[in-house]
Each structure stands twice: as C-alpha cells, then as structure tokens.
C-alpha cells in the first residue's frame, strides 16, 4: 500500500518535472490546437494568407534571427559554482561545438503568435430557487490528472444560483493553484503595468521582460499580447534592433513589424550592419503578407532578388524612403571600397 503510494508520487513528480522542462512543447501543443480552429490575426479576410506557423515563414524568421553562440550562452544569473575545465582534442571540441549549436537552436525556438482568445460566457444552469442561500461564490475545479488544462472543467456557482463556466483569468488562476508551473505567479507581478514597463525599457531589458511574460501569461491572453506589442513598439521607436537579435523573440518582433508595415527602421539597421540578405528576406516576407501592395507587384514583374528587392521597396512603399536609400548608397560605397582594397595587393 505504502509502496504503491510512493510509486504513484514518484510517477506524478516525474511527470511534473517533465512538464516543467517541456514548457515550450506544451505551449506549442496549445498553439497547434487553437491554430487549427482559428484564422489569421492581423491580415485581411483572405483565408489563405500566411500564418506565423507556416514552414516558409518560420524558415525565413529563423534565418534572420541568426545563431550567435556567444549571445545565446551568455552568463545567466544562477547559483555560484566553480567552473569545470575539460581537456579535449580538436575532434572532441568540434563535437562539443555541434552539441552547443543544437542546444542553442532549442533555446532559440520561437514562442507562438496566436490570436486573442475569445471570452467565455457560458451559463450551464440558472437555479433561481437557490438564490440567497450563500453569500460567496463556489469555484469547482476538476483535478483529474490526465486531461489538458484547456479542456479542464472549471465552473462557478454564484450566490444568485447561476452555474457558469469560469472566465479565462479565473481559469488561469485555478490551474496555477492546483497545478503550479515554475516561475509563474498567481497574480501577475506589477512589472507588467505600463508605467513600470517604461522603466524596464529605459534599462534596455527587453528580453528579460519578454521571457518573464512568456512564463507568466498564456500566449493567447490579452496581457501577453499587450506586453509584447508595447515592447516591440519601444524597440522600433528607439531603433534597438540588436537587443532581440539572435534571441527567440526576434522572429515574433519581425512578424509584428511586418504585419504593422513598420519595417523601415529594421531595414535601415540591417543595411547598416551589411545584412543585405536578411533585409531581402524581410521584404520577401512582407510581400508574402501584403501581396496587393505596389512593391510586391513590381518585384513580381521584375523577379528581383537581394539588393534589388530592397531598392524597389525603398522606392515604392517605404515611409522613410530617404533614409533607406541613403543607407543603401553608403553600403554600396563601402562594398566597392572593400572590393577595390581586396583586389589591390
């Protein structure tokens, strides 16, 4: 009997540990289930417009994000431990670097972008004769272990006798109470209020706040979207595009900017850093999402590639056309100088 209970506890704990490690897997599972039933978020009513989770879109975004190992594995605040040193041959070092690249790719997996969840407004029963017996609400949560949190029954019996389904906030609270997730708090910390977010942005800690947001909120909750949108707006306003570069949030930021048609700052930044191919990929993504624009049509006519795409975009649909063209000119001058220098001895 005791052994049975111990094994049951062990199984439960190991399952929970596995759940904690596979946070992103759970999030993706939720994303896939909701995405199959919902349509695109910002794009027009065209049913076949590209989604965030499309393979092509994901490929473009991962390519743009890049893979800077130094940034992906930069020191994180953790428990003090003396460093370990290992003697390796060249082959072993290559193997270790490969493994590190794999781990970095895991860490750089983009969190999903979902449309906002619809409000729950379902009344299961209206028993008016029970009115006045109680002065408090009763919240009934189903704690059966093997059902996904999205399908869990959480109902509330109000003092006036109505039995209704719990709202999303109440659901999140109850699920966190009975199945706590590491790092998530019952009430969201005050960092996520607007005035406190401004302080965070002044300190250039955009990635930290986005990581916190990912842990605290569900990907389709309005709070998650609000915090993400504010962060992306701030990055765009101040041109701090190198902050999310080579982190998992870069893809989401690019998607938001492309949907909102605000890619000029990003393009200028990329051209100044000599990342012309990435700039071309961004414009390619833009044409995929807004195929009715003049830039898309011209590019399609001329079958442009690389720097020509950027030039067409700068001419037609760009809002900061002057800056983009200046940056392009500067890049072309430097590239001709470099080729001149390399050709001469």
């Amino acid at each position, binding site marked *: *009997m005791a052994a049975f209970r111990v094994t049951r506890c062990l199984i439960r704990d190991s399952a929970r540990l596995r759940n904690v490690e596979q946070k992103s897997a759970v999030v993706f599972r939720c994303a896939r289930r909701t995405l199959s039933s919902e349509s695109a978020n910002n794009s027009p009513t065209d049913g076949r417009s590209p989604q965030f989770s499309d393979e092509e879109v994901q490929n473009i975004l991962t390519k743009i994000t890049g893979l800077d190992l130094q940034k992906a594995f930069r020191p994180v605040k953790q428990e003090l431990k003396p460093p370990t040193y290992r003697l390796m041959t060249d082959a072993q070092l290559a193997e270790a670097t490969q493994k590190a690249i794999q781990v970095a790719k895991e860490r750089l997996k983009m969190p999903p972008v979902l449309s906002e969840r619809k409000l729950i407004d379902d009344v*299961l*029963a209206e028993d008016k*004769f*029970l*009115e*006045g*017996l109680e002065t*408090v*609400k*009763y*919240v*009934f*949560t*189903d*704690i*059966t*272990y093997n059902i996904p949190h999205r399908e869990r*029954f959480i*109902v*509330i*019996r109000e003092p006036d006798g109505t*039995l209704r389904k719990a709202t999303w906030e109440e659901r999140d609270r*109850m699920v966190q*109470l*009975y199945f706590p997730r590491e790092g998530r708090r019952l009430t969201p910390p005050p960092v996520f209020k607007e005035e406190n977010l401004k302080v965070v942005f002044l300190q250039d800690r955009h990635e930290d706040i986005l990581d916190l947001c990912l842990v605290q909120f569900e990907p389709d909750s309005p709070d998650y979207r609000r915090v993400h949108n504010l962060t992306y707006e701030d990055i765009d306003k101040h041109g701090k595009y190198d902050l999310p570069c080579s982190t998992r949030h870069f893809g989401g930021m690019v998607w938001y900017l492309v949907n909102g048609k605000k890619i000029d700052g990003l393009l200028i930044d990329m051209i100044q850093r000599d990342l012309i191919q990435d700039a071309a990929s961004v414009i390619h993504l833009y044409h995929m999402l807004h195929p009715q624009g003049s830039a898309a049509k011209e590019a399609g006519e001329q079958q442009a590639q690389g720097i020509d795409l950027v030039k067409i975009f700068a001419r037609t649909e760009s809002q900061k056309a002057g800056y983009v063209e200046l940056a392009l000119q500067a890049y072309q001058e430097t590239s001709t100088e470099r080729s001149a220098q390399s050709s001469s001895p």
Partner: protein
Amino acid sequence: MHLLHFPLVVIRVAFPSILSASLLLKHYHGGHVVIRLALGGCTNRPFYRIVAAYNKRARDSKHIEQLGSFDPLPNLYNEKLVSLNFQRIKYWIACGAHPTKPVAKLLEACRVLPLHPMTVTKAERFRKTAAQKEALGAPEEGSEEASESKPETA
C-alpha cells in the same frame, strides 16, 4: 550418532511481504467506504480534504485516497475553492462509497449528483422566512415613522 546431539530446532520462516501486509491491514466487520471531509489546517483556520476512507476510521487518519479539497474560508475574490477529482469520485461511487451530507451538498452544487429534495425544501423555507422578516420589517418601519411624527407634531 553425532546427529542425535544436535538439537532439533524448528526455525520459523519469516512471512513473505504480501502475507505480512494483509496481516497488518485492519479488517472491518460491516464497514463501508465513505467520501467525507477530513479536517486539517490550524487554529481558527480550517481546511478540508475530500477523502475516500473506511467508515470506521478516525476522521483525519489514514484514508484510501484523497479526491479533492475544500477551503471553507472565502479568498480575496470572495470565492470558496473546491477541487474534485471527478474521475476517481465516479469510480468510488460506482464501487459503492457513500458521500456524507456536506460532500453531497458540494457535489449537488456542481451538478455531479442530482438535487436532494431537502435542498429545495430548505431553499423554499429560507425564502419564506426572509419574506416574513421583510414583511415584519415594513410595518415596523411604518409604526416607527408614525411614532416619530407624533412627538414632532405634539
């Protein structure tokens, strides 16, 4: 001949673990499984666990399985939190477990069990007394107003 010198000792073999567990398990005559509230918590702070246990066991002692919890004190949002493992509750009720009155009330409130006729009767009685109090209150107010106005006029 030497063998006769060795004493014949009957060595009692140790029971295998399965047998010893069943020897240690208490057997109840005529007992049955109940689903009831086991009290926990601290002074002036009760907390109940919804538990499947043998009828004869002490209220808070060893239970067969915990099926949920009930917090009788309302929280910040004016809610009393009840958690129920519906799958296992269904199993135990199917095995013939009897829920006690408070547990039955909770299960009625979330529509797992059908309504008890006394619940409806009690609700009606409550409403009748509430209506009577209101009726008593109204003529009292009327008489108070009348008595207030009389000294003013007088």
